C-alpha cells in the first residue's frame, strides 16, 4: 500500500515536473541565447498561409480580397526573436517555408502551438511597436485550442504597449470569444486609439449584443470622437435598430 502510494506520488511528481519542464523549456531555451536570434516554428491553424512577400493571410481575409490564393503557401508559423543582453528586443512572424539558421541564429525547432502561443503572449506584454504586433499575431495564428484568454490578457494589461493591446483586441474579435465577453473588454480600454479600435472590432460581430454595445458607446462614451465612430460603424450594420437610433438622435 505504502509502496503504491509512493509510486503514485512519484508518477504525479514526474508528471508535474514534466509539465513544468515543458512549460519552462521554451522560456529557458530562449533565455539561453543572450545575443543573436532565436528561431522557432509551430503549426498554423487551418486557413492560414503566407505570401512570398512576407504577407500573412487568414481564411477571413481571403474572403474580402481579390488576391490570388494560389500564391499563398500554407505551412508553419515561423517566429524569429531578436535577443540582446538576455532580453527579447524584437519579434517577427512569417508563415510557410523553413528556417535555415545562419551564424548568430539558434533554431530551437518545432514547438507545440499552444505552448508557443502562451509564451509569445507573455512576450507581447512587454514589447512594443511592430514586435508587439507580430508577437500577438503569432499567438492568433497558432493551431492552439483557444488563444482568446492569452489575447484578452494582453488587451487588459494596462502596462502592455499600445500596439500589442490593439493587435490583441483585433485578434480577440476574430476568435471564438463570445460577443458578450468581447464587449466587456471596453471598460478597461483607456486610450483613445484602443476605444476607437474597439468599436470597429465589435462592429464586425454583427449580432444583437454588438449592436447594443455600439449604441451604448455612441450614447455614453466620454469622448465625442469615439461616440461619432461608434455611430459610423452602427450605420454600417444591417440592424434596423441602428437606423432607429440614428433617427431618434437627430430628432430628439
Amino acid at each position, binding site marked *: 500500500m505504502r509502496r503504491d502510494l509512493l509510486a503514485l506520488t512519484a508518477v504525479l511528481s514526474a508528471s508535474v515536473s514534466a509539465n513544468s519542464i515543458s512549460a519552462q523549456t521554451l522560456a529557458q531555451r530562449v533565455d539561453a541565447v543572450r545575443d543573436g536570434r532565436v528561431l522557432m516554428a509551430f503549426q498554423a491553424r487551418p486557413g492560414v498561409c503566407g505570401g512570398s512577400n512576407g504577407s500573412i493571410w487568414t481564411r477571413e481575409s481571403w474572403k474580402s480580397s481579390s488576391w490570388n490564393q494560389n500564391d499563398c503557401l500554407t505551412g508553419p508559423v515561423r517566429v524569429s526573436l531578436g535577443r540582446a543582453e538576455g532580453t527579447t528586443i524584437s519579434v517577427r512572424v512569417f508563415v510557410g517555408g523553413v528556417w535555415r539558421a545562419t551564424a548568430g541564429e539558434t533554431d530551437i525547432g518545432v514547438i507545440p502551438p499552444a505552448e508557443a502561443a502562451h509564451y509569445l503572449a507573455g512576450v507581447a506584454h512587454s514589447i512594443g511597436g511592430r514586435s508587439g504586433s507580430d508577437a500577438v499575431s503569432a499567438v492568433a495564428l497558432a493551431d492552439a485550442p483557444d488563444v482568446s484568454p492569452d489575447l484578452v490578457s494582453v488587451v487588459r494589461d494596462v502596462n502592455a504597449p499600445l500596439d500589442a493591446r490593439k493587435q490583441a483586441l483585433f485578434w480577440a474579435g476574430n476568435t471564438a470569444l463570445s460577443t458578450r465577453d468581447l464587449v466587456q473588454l471596453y471598460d478597461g480600454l483607456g486610450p483613445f486609439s484602443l476605444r476607437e479600435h474597439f468599436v470597429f472590432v465589435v462592429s464586425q460581430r454583427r449580432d444583437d449584443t454588438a449592436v447594443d454595445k455600439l449604441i451604448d458607446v455612441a450614447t455614453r462614451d466620454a469622448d465625442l470622437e469615439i461616440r461619432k465612430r461608434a*455611430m*459610423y460603424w452602427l*450605420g*454600417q450594420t444591417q440592424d434596423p435598430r441602428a*437606423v432607429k437610433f440614428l433617427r431618434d438622435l*437627430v430628432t430628439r
Partner: protein
Amino acid sequence: MTLRTSLVIAAAAVVTSTPLSAQSLASRVVASDGIVQVLYPSRPTACGDGKGFISNLFGSHYVFSGNATGQGGNSWSTQVCLRGPARVVATVMNGEVTRARAYVGPVPPSASDVRTISVPAAEASAWLGDVIARGSARAASDMLLPFILADGPEPWALLLKVARDENRPRDLKRNVMMWLSNGVSEHLGLSDADEPSNDDEEMRKQAIYVLTQRPKNESVPQLIELAKSLKHPASRRTAIYWLGQSGDPRAVDVYAELLGLR
C-alpha cells in the same frame, strides 16, 4: 417635310429659345480668343476683395473663393469684404468659353490684353443661365457662382430645371444641387444657423451623415423628412445638403417645394 427642312426648323427653335441678350453678350464674349472679364451688378448682400474672396452671399457664414469653394467664415473673418460688381473672368479658346472664375468687389487693374465688357445684371444672368443650361459641363459648372451672384432674378427656377434635365452631365447636376441646397437653406432662414457648438449638435450632424451612407431606399426618405421638418436649424441645413448630394431625383422636388417653386 424633308430632313433638311426639319433640321433648319430645329436649329431655328434652338436659336429662338436663347434670349437675345444672351446671344449678344455671348457673341461678344467669344468674339476673340483670350481672357475676357464681364462686369455686372452683384447681389446687394454680396461682398468680396476682388481677388477671389466672396462673402455674405448666403448668410454671413458662407465664404467663397475663386480658387476653391469653402464654407465657414472663421479663417476668413479678417478678410476685407467690400461691396462692388461681380466679375467673371473667362478664358475663351476656339470661340468657346473653356473656364471661368468669379470675383466680387473692387476691380483690379487688368492687363492690356484682357477685354472688359460691362453689362446690366439681367443681361449677365441671361448669358450665364444659357451657358449653364446648354454649355459644356466645365463651363456650366464654372458659371454657377457667377449666375447666383448676379443682382437679377432669383436663379433657383433655372437651376431646378437643369437639375431635372436628363441630358445634363451628372457632375454639373451635383454642383447645381449643392448651390440649390444653399438657396433652400437661405430661403428657409437656415443659412446663419450656427455650426455645431456642442456635442449634441455634432452628434446630430454625424448621425445625418451616417444615414446618408445607408442604402438609398432607407436614407432618402429619412433625409426628405428631416429636410422638411427637422426642428434643429443647423442639422436641418445638413440634411438639406446631403439630400441634394444623394443624386436621387426626389431631392429636386423637395427643393422645389421648399423654395415654393415647381
